[in-house]
């Protein structure tokens, strides 16, 4: 829940793709507009399949669309 460690470039890629609207992207990848908004805000990490579909829509590699910010996991007590 809350902000994820995955950042996206979807907003910029939409702008570069002839100012594609969130609804157009949602229709292209089979998701709702609300889901696209949540992904752009960083409130939802999409499934691998949806992430690949978004990347495919922009003809971009997935690492150009999504950026993972690595964070150390808390160490378990032995």
């Amino acid at each position, binding site marked *: *829940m809350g*902000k*994820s460690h995955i950042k996206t470039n979807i907003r910029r890629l939409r702008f570069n793709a002839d100012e594609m609207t969130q609804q157009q992207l949602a229709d292209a990848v089979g*998701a*709702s507009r*609300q889901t696209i908004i*949540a992904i752009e805000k960083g*409130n*939802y990490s*999409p499934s691998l399949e949806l992430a690949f579909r978004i990347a495919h829509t922009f003809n971009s590699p997935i690492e150009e669309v999504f950026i993972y910010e690595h964070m150390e996991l808390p160490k378990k007590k032995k």
Partner: protein
Amino acid sequence: MSYREKENIINILSGLLITAIYGWAVYQRHLEGSINLTTDYNTWGSVFLVFILVSIIARIIILIIFHIINAIATREEKIPAEDERDELIKLKATRNSHYVFTGGFIMSIMALALGMPVYWLFIAFIMIGLLAEIIDNGSQIYYYRKGV
């Protein structure tokens, strides 16, 4: 506010309304003496079955009315299709409501073991069911707003 959030608010309100009206109607019949809920436990069976039936029919009618009003207000006739985020939110909300229902069920049984009258158990089941439903829909609203 998205369609799903509005739908969940309608579900909470209709759940409260239907339970309150039906509960009041049953209690009036109990006061009149046409049914005895404190000693005749078989009556509770028919009370529950009729409640389920009434609840389903009333909810369908309320949701149709909501959809019509929403379509007029937003000019969007199509109900948005569910995607993976909707399904994940529903799953998490169902988990939360099951926790509440299980906890309530165990507490009711414990209260029964401690000497609570049996008819209170049936009332508790209705209240726990309503609470679990509110938690389900409330959780969905929370996840839609805060993220999942």
